[in-house]
């Protein structure tokens, strides 16, 4: 049934055109945040870019220039291999965090009675120093420590099983470290979920796995994407886990950059690697933005 469009008195027309749709806040309220962002994020980024283009001088110094040498050096297969290895770590870590984190988030969102408590258990370790958490894994994975001893005694693992200082230990540490970042967004998405939709799907003939695939998963997808991004990006720059749990034996992009700013004293090269790494991460974010926009259509 059509309703006649309301007619506004002439003198208010300007106001409507300018800010129609909601309360108008003065733009300058954003200035502090923008200023902070510009000063502590954009400016350093620009500086990093400038250093990436500079030239090395003497032992330690460098001079600003328009030098693309470092980017050419980076093209070496050695660095390509390190990049790929880092990419593998980031992808594996993200997928593993998803495999561990999704069921956990699902359980808390759908079945748990004490949601807050469980969520706290997931989040609180995050408040502890990253360093201490990673170090505690050194202790847990120590062959002399009760955990592995008990497993060996039961017979689940072989007597000479040692995972410390291997890539496996790094992967364990990485999944553990970033798990909360995956669990929370996924939980948020599942928490909003209308579970009667799953009942409807079952009613219409879907066994639970199929209902999960066709209903739950698509609707949880925004959370999955957000969580994946939150895990993938820091993982690309991962530094500590390989050093502590991996016995510093393997070098990832983060370690490579650290090396340049440390003993190699080659800041320009370090900045170059950082710039390329940031470019890769930006691509990931753009991909996410694209996917997330498509998700908007699903609403719900």
């Amino acid at each position, binding site marked *: 049934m059509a309703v006649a469009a309301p007619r506004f008195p002439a003198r208010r027309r300007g106001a409507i055109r300018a800010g129609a749709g909601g309360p108008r806040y003065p733009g300058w309220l954003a200035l502090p945040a923008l200023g902070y962002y510009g000063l502590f994020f954009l400016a350093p980024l620009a500086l990093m870019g400038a250093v990436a283009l500079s030239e090395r001088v003497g032992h330690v110094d460098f001079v600003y220039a328009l030098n693309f040498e470092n980017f050419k050096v980076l093209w070496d297969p050695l660095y390509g291999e390190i990049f790929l290895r880092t990419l593998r770590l980031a992808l594996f870590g993200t997928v593993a965090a998803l495999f561990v984190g999704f069921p956990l988030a699902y359980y808390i969102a759908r079945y748990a009675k004490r949601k807050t408590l469980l969520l706290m258990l997931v989040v609180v370790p995050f408040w502890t120093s990253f360093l201490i958490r990673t170090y505690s894994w050194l202790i847990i994975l120590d062959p002399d420590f009760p955990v592995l001893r008990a497993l060996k005694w039961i017979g689940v693992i072989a007597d000479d099983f040692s995972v410390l200082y291997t890539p496996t230990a790094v992967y364990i540490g990485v999944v553990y470290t970033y798990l909360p970042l995956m669990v929370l967004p996924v939980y948020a998405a599942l928490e909003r979920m209308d579970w009667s939709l799953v009942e409807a799907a079952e*009613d219409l003939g879907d066994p639970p796995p199929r209902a999960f695939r066709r209903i739950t998963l698509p609707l949880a997808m925004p959370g999955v994407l957000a969580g994946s991004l939150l895990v993938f990006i820091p993982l690309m720059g991962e530094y500590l886990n390989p050093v502590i749990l991996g016995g510093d034996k393997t070098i990832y992009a983060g370690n490579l950059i650290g090396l340049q700013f440390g003993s190699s004293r080659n800041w320009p090269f370090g900045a170059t690697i950082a710039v390329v790494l940031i470019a890769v991460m930006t691509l990931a974010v753009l991909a996410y933005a694209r996917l997330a926009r498509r998700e908007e259509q699903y609403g719900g």
Partner: protein
Amino acid sequence: MELSVGLRGVTKAFDGVVAVDDVDLDVRDGEFLSLLGPSGCGKTTTLRLIAGFERPDAGEIFIGGEDVAGLPPYKRDVNTVFQSYALFPHLNVLDNVGYGLKQRGLRKGAREKRARDALELVRLVQLEARKPKQLSGGQQQRVALARALVMEPKVLLLDEPLGALDLQVRKQLQIELKRIQERVGITFVYVTHDQEEALVMSDRVAVMQEGKIVQLGSPREIYDRPTTRFVADFIGETNFIRRNGGVVAVRPERLRILRAAQADPGGLGGEVVTTMVVGPAIQFLVKTDNGQEVLVRQQRSGGDGEAESLREGDRVALTWSEDAALVLDEGGDR
């Protein structure tokens, strides 16, 4: 006569609270049966037990003659229309309706055709490309209905499907639902707390209270001959009149009201408190001599009826016929 659904001694409790208490029920093939009662009476739980979303603690459930006790919902030949519609927000109307057809192995074209047929049944074909959030409540309900109907189940279960709609839309859909059910011929089991709705749409009504079915019969039977005080009270309007040491339940329209002077002795005496014209009827609130308030209703007969001349303060006598009254004992129950 074929039985679509049979319940034998079905019991279900949650956390120690009994929701469905030893219920027996036979639903006839092709009938429109309502489960009617106040909230908490167990009607929704009964429906969910038939659908398979809950497992009974005791008793058996038969659908189409088959014992479905161990079967999960996706293996039962029933479909549900949910109170919240439960439309899949990430799919458009056509895909929603065709959702359950996917695993039947039909090709896309065939699925879409069937979905459209169902949409035609609910008169929504032109909206097939829309997403659920772009539809009104009534439209969403019709899509939910089409989605269930397209599966051609043995029984269609409807859980208070019209609860969230405006009066106008509700009335319209009540009629449509009835029409569709008659056309398609599927057995409908319909849950509602709105007694008017149940009476309008159903072939039979099962009135439930505290987990039990207290009366099962046609709308007319339920209305004219309630077997318990609860049913009498719940359905329509009823006066509970204390008389001769007992209580009698009489509907307002079954009471005859006459001027005291003209009435036979033996009627219930009282005084008119208010008169009200309500559409085609006229209502009187009468304060009886033994202190009760009784509601009387009569159809107006065009201005020259006896009743219509009554005014406030007039002395009147109320009578009723035997079969119009339900005699209840001291406690108020039959």
